[in-house]
């Protein structure tokens, strides 16, 4: 078997990113869209940690900050979701159209 290089990890991260993008673009449930965004952030983290193995620990520190940011963003996003659900009783993305003409 060929040895596992950085390239393998980058391919996995790219596939995770593409799956997250598909989830964000195609699903109608807001909660699942938010979870697909978490997938995208995880793909970026995998990329950072894979490269940090070659070039020092800065990538891992950046990954820790990305995880912190993901926590803050998930909290705020879910707060928005709760506020919206209280008004409209739905989690369908297509029904977020209060500002539409």
């Amino acid at each position, binding site marked *: 078997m060929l040895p596992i290089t*950085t390239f393998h990890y980058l391919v996995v991260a790219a596939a995770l990113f593409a799956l997250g993008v598909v989830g964000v673009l195609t699903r109608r449930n807001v909660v699942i869209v938010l979870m697909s965004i978490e997938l995208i952030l995880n793909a970026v983290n995998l990329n950072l940690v894979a490269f940090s193995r070659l070039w020092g620990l800065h990538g891992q520190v950046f990954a820790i900050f990305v995880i912190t940011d993901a926590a803050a963003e998930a909290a*705020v996003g879910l707060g928005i979701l709760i506020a919206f659900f209280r008004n409209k009783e739905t989690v369908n993305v297509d029904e977020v159209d209060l500002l539409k003409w």
Partner: protein
Amino acid sequence: MTPVATPFFFYFLSALTLGSAFLVITCKNAVHSALALILGLLGQAGLYLMLYAPFVAGVQIMLYAGGIMVLFLFVIMLVNLDRALKEEQFSRQWLAGCLAAIILGALFVGVLMRGKALFPASSEQIAEASNTQQIGELLYGPYMFAFEIASLLLLVAIIGAVVMAKKRI
């Protein structure tokens, strides 16, 4: 010196992570998606361990799988999703979305193939006994400002989430 088990673990953990990611975007029930995402995050923590990053793996399990996903599950329970189960799950432009993701994937593959010669094929081995200590030294040294700003960001996020979820401000 490459052990025989390393490719096996890599392919197993990658398959686990990618399979869980696929389940996240295709499950009808949001709780199933959340549980699949937890499995994917645990698989990713295993990949971090393979990359000689034990501290990030621990942070991933504690914060991401144990904090953020629990928050997601709480909100899924709060929000009544029975009606959402009977509705249409995928938007009408799902084909355009998949096409965009395929083009993005092709772009990634092109960039990765082009740049394959730019970084060394085999990675160096970093001593992992002092990984946490070295990350601590980095966080309290060059990245001190970012560290403090991150704590401020978390405070702002907490206040924002509480205000937005309250019934009457």
